[in-house]
């Protein structure tokens, strides 16, 4: 008998939260409307009142609420992070997702009754790093970086005293999260301190006379698209660049593909994964509904010993291309 994994779904707004709950999420994750979480985008996230109502809605349906407080407070601004943690505790969220050691220490000390999950932003990619956070702060679950193969996850599960959550669908990033200052180098806003990656205010689409479009972040061109192509959002690590060893511009870091591990569900459950995370707090309600419903069904089918059908999800993936990323093989490294 397979153990039943938790399906953890994105909630960028109160409406998306209700959509995810209704579509069968076991847990939703969300953040406050400020720099305390890693998706600090205009129009996203929750006011205290919205969070209160949303926790009630989720709990009525038996769905857990995980509060992402997963950025790194700069000295002098710690109060904002402390406030997010205190508010979450008062409203009865089911766990904090944290990355900063100071925030973890505060949450563990002041709110020992609330579970701590270690954010992928903490970049804990070895049993020793994970055990450190478990030992020091009583972390109950680690969100693994998207860089481990299934056999590596299985081996890891045997060496750590906490639950494992892995990304299963959405953005496919290979940069070590919580260690990236690319946006700050170009825009003056920090992914770690401000929760911002490629901020929209710095994004430009420069159309040329021939109809081609160059996408730009701040002063730097990130990619160029032909008149017939759809211009992608300029994220530095998804851009095309020139290098001496290449004749033409190439994806120096990674292709703009989406992660889709639906086919690996049984293997991941068997490897010891306790929770599957769908990425995409910035996505629409329609997207959330489709993906959450599809994975709800897929997990239930897998647990029933059936082969899950997930063909519809391909249409939702970025650039219509998808990958099993790191999880199947380590040849990509």
């Amino acid at each position: 008998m397979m153990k039943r994994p938790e399906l953890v779904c994105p909630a960028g707004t109160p409406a998306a939260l209700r959509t995810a709950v209704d579509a069968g999420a076991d847990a939703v994750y969300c953040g406050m409307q400020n720099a305390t979480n890693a998706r600090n985008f205009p129009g996203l996230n929750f006011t205290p009142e919205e969070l209160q109502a949303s926790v009630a809605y989720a709990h009525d349906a038996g769905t857990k609420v995980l509060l992402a407080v997963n950025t790194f407070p700069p000295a002098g601004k710690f109060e904002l992070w402390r406030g997010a943690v205190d508010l979450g505790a008062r409203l009865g969220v089911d766990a904090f997702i944290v990355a900063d050691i100071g925030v973890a220490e505060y949450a563990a000390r002041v709110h020992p009754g609330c579970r701590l999950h270690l954010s992928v932003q903490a970049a804990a990619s070895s049993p020793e790093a994970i055990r450190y956070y478990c030992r020091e702060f009583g972390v109950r679950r680690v969100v693994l970086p998207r860089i481990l193969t299934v056999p590596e996850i299985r081996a890891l599960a045997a060496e750590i005293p906490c639950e494992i959550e892995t990304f299963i669908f959405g953005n496919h990033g290979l940069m070590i999260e919580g260690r990236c200052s690319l946006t700050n180098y170009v825009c003056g806003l920090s992914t770690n301190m401000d929760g911002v990656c490629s901020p929209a205010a710095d994004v430009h689409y420069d159309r040329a006379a021939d109809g081609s479009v160059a996408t730009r972040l701040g002063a730097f061109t990130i990619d160029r698209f032909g008149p017939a192509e759809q211009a992608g959002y300029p994220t530095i690590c998804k851009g095309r660049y020139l290098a001496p060893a290449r004749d033409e511009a190439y994806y120096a870091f990674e292709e703009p593909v989406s992660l889709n591990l639906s086919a690996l569900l049984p293997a991941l459950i068997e490897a010891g994964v306790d929770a599957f995370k769908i990425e995409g707090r910035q996505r629409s309600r329609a997207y959330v509904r489709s993906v959450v419903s599809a994975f709800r069904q897929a997990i239930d089918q897998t647990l029933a010993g059936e082969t899950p059908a997930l063909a519809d999800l391909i249409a939702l993936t970025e650039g219509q291309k998808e990958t099993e990323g790191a999880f199947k093989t380590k040849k990509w490294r």
Partner: protein
Amino acid sequence: MTAQLTLGPILFHWSAQDKLDFYARIADEAPVDIVYLGEVVCSKRTPFFEQHYPDVIERLERGGKRVVLSSLSDVTLKRERDMIAALCEIESHEIEINNTAGLLHRSGRAHRIGPLMNVYNECTMRYLAGKGATHFALPVELPRDVAARLATEAAALGAGIEVQVFGRASLALSARCYHARAHGRSKDNCQFVCEQDPDGMPLRTIAGQDFLVVNGVQTLSHSYVNLLGEIEDMQAMGIDHFRLVPHKLDMVAVAEIFADRIAGRIEASEAEAWLAALDIPAPFSNGFWHGIAGGRRVGALPA
């Protein structure tokens, strides 16, 4: 404490002979107080230089330098886990930890915290100091006001505090090797192609702008951080260690310029002129320190 000039670990894959020559000259000629040694970026590179460390350490110490051993920054594979565990058992020298795995092993015993660890606030600093951290090299993206608060906290804790004042800024780390990728290879089959680029492989934008450089799994800025103009302000706020990142240029000359400026023997403008005369093939930047885009350069803040 009197201000200390430090030389960070060599981030790039230089040949063993180049490293030996480099450290021999540093030992004899460079006015640096502390030298950090060790492979921080890629565990695959370590076998090329491992056997030379005892000689290099001895040479540097005879030259009057204090040697600190730096750990890897990405620890995932078995060999990387073993490497950092072994480093954490060293008692003969101070160690600098660049990955949380090291904290599991070393908590309760003295250690330094490297710039690739995330120490952004007083609470994190205080916690780590309570577990044996004696010195904090700050992340390169920290702005002045945050660094000032951390300097105050470090002073209260009796810990050292260090800021990178020269060299390319480390901007990102990855599990994937972008050097191998550029050459159509994988990390396991890289054939150490990163050795071709001793200051990093340039990445230009499609529009032809200089932008980033790749160093294996690490991505750095094209521009060189240069905080010569900010050193007086940094000293006033209590920052007592100033780090140079090694590059393939006359690092003895670089060290002399910074040492003279830190000691107040030359004015900032004169120091800038000396540094400009080295013809470094990239612009300087100080944007991170001033809380704007890291790649930009602005005039020093009035003291």
